[in-house]
């Protein structure tokens, strides 16, 4: 028993005794966390504007990456392929609004959620049918190599992912707060009927928000794909984005980023320092249990809107 307690506490001593290694673990966690944040952002956008919990976001990431790689394999230069992928994602948003969302207006949330799971299967089949299901390499010109700053190893790819995330969040924040469309999006998120009654076109707003989520999915797909290859497991990253959402709150863009960082750092540190105690591979569930424990104290997440209920 004493031995066990000792082994629980010892990792703290390790952290203090070798600070560079600890910082490296932290940086690795932050990088992984930013990747989660990129995926979580897509969820938040759609949830904010339509109250739909889009389960297919993970597959949209996969689909975007597959399309980009497929186009590049056919000899297109990166910018053209990227532009075409954006066009494909926007077309997809139009199709989803017309075929899936419009007939299901006014249904309960769980029905819409199920519909996105159906969409998930459909896109997975379509993507792999069009572009093939074997693992592909995505080379966007940023080398996956490390350099050292003050004794700490940093990865170029992870740094550029961090930059991408930062740029995306800034752009999105400005878009939501400062533009006309952004204000309309927030109005729709607040109250569908009120928004409709003052003349905000609901259908257009939905297409816009799904397109934006598609573009965020491209960013996430490019970063994940460059790091670990474009393959089916990419869509499973979506599941990791869920605890991120819980931590940050479903409606908050900054929440997605902060939540992603907490989850990323938390699971890396837990895996490296406490994982060996229980046989390793705790990365699979640690994020969920962290989120679960967190929910008990703050059900709406860090930045989520407080849920106030009246009879």
């Amino acid at each position: 028993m004493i031995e066990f307690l000792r082994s629980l506490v010892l990792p703290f001593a390790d952290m203090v005794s070798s600070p560079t290694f600890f910082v490296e673990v932290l940086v690795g966690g932050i990088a992984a966390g930013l990747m989660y944040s990129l995926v979580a952002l897509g969820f938040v956008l759609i949830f904010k504007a339509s109250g739909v919990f889009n389960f297919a976001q993970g597959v949209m990431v996969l689909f975007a990456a597959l399309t980009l790689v497929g186009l590049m394999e056919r000899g297109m230069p990166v910018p053209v392929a990227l532009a075409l992928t954006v066009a494909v994602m926007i077309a997809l948003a139009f199709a989803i609004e017309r075929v899936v969302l419009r007939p299901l207006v006014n249904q309960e949330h769980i029905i819409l959620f199920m519909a996105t799971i159906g969409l998930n299967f459909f896109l997975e089949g379509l993507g792999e049918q069009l572009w093939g299901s074997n693992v592909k390499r995505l080379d966007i010109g940023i080398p996956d190599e490390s350099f050292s700053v003050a004794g700490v190893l940093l990865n170029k790819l992870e740094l550029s992912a961090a930059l991408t995330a930062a740029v995306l969040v800034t752009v999105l924040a400005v878009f939501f707060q400062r533009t006309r469309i952004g204000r309309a999006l927030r109005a729709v998120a607040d109250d569908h009927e009120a928004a409709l009654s003052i003349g905000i076109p609901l259908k257009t707003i939905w297409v816009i928000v799904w397109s934006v989520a598609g573009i965020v999915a491209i960013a996430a797909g490019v970063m994940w794909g460059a790091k670990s290859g474009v393959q089916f497991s990419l869509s499973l990253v979506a599941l990791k984005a869920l605890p991120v959402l819980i931590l940050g709150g479903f409606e908050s863009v900054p929440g997605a980023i902060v939540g992603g960082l907490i989850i990323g750092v938390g699971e890396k540190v837990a895996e490296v320092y406490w994982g060996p105690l229980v046989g390793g591979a705790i990365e699979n569930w640690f994020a969920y249990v962290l989120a679960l424990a967190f929910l008990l104290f703050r059900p709406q997440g860090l930045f989520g809107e407080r849920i106030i209920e009246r009879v």
Partner: protein
Amino acid sequence: MIYREAGQFKTTYAGDQAIFPILQDRVFVGLVALAAFVAVPLLANEYWLQAILIPFLIYALAAIGLNLLTGYAGLLSLGTGGFMAVGAYSAFKLATAFPWLNVILVFVLAGVCAAGVGLLFGIPSLRIKGFYLAVATLAAQFFLIWLFNKVGWFVNYAPSGTATAPPRTMLGVMVTGPQATAPVRYLVALGLVVLFALVAKNLVRGRIGRSWMAIRDRDIAAEIIGVRPLRTKLLAFAISSFYCGVAGAELLFLYLGSVETLAFDINLSFLILFMVIIGGLGSILGSFLGAAFIVLVPIFLTNVPNWIGLDMRTDTQKHLELMIFGGLIIFFLIVEPHGLARLWQITKEKLRLWPFPH
């Protein structure tokens, strides 16, 4: 003309509260039961029993369990696979630790273990609901699967990491293990699912089911009229997990014979959720219809190209299957969000008026 309740007067309370108040329904259900218990084991071949009917019955049981939680109590759960795994592994441990234990008792005790775990993971449901709860139940899913993967004790330190159903007899007949014949396993699964479906039907018609539905429809109002949310929600989690646990134990003992944790991964949770949604939320019959739909569609999709003489590569076929499956789900949600059970109800209404629809 045939299906009509005219002239059937109810003279007792028992008659008024019967599950099937109309004579024609009783005859129909009786015929179905007769066919299921007598005709199918005699006539169906090995392939039908092993590949279609046994999984159908087991999935139907799990779907009933999830339907109690999601359809009746309104608590969305994505942890079904995890709770089924608890049932399967605790049944395996019980059966190997106490070889003299009756296999049905093993199933029930495994269900009780799953109910305990379900209670534990149901605690957050007091503070959170909707999608937040769904994500919270994912914690159960991933944690439990990891636990069974990592701790060798659960599989008796088998080097392969698989749990294999030990051979057990009941009334002198081999029920589990490699020697058990498909009709016997089918009958055991059928008996259990019929028994538990009846229990579930009566649960949801009674006080407990009503309190679940009150919580589902408006929890604050339910609390004010005296339904205790804590007890009601935890009870829903416990009973639902009990059903899932029994189904998981059956999956190991009656269907697969030996399992790895992979059999209980997140996809199983989604599969069961699909059954519940497509069959109809808040309907016991719907759980059966949904299970039948999900079991039959992939088999149908695999065989159609052969029937019409189309030659497809296996991966193309697999992708098309995924696409059609996803498309069908969306189609069904658009056409009838209340599921197959609602379609059945509409058919019955139409049948009452037939052949004079006005």
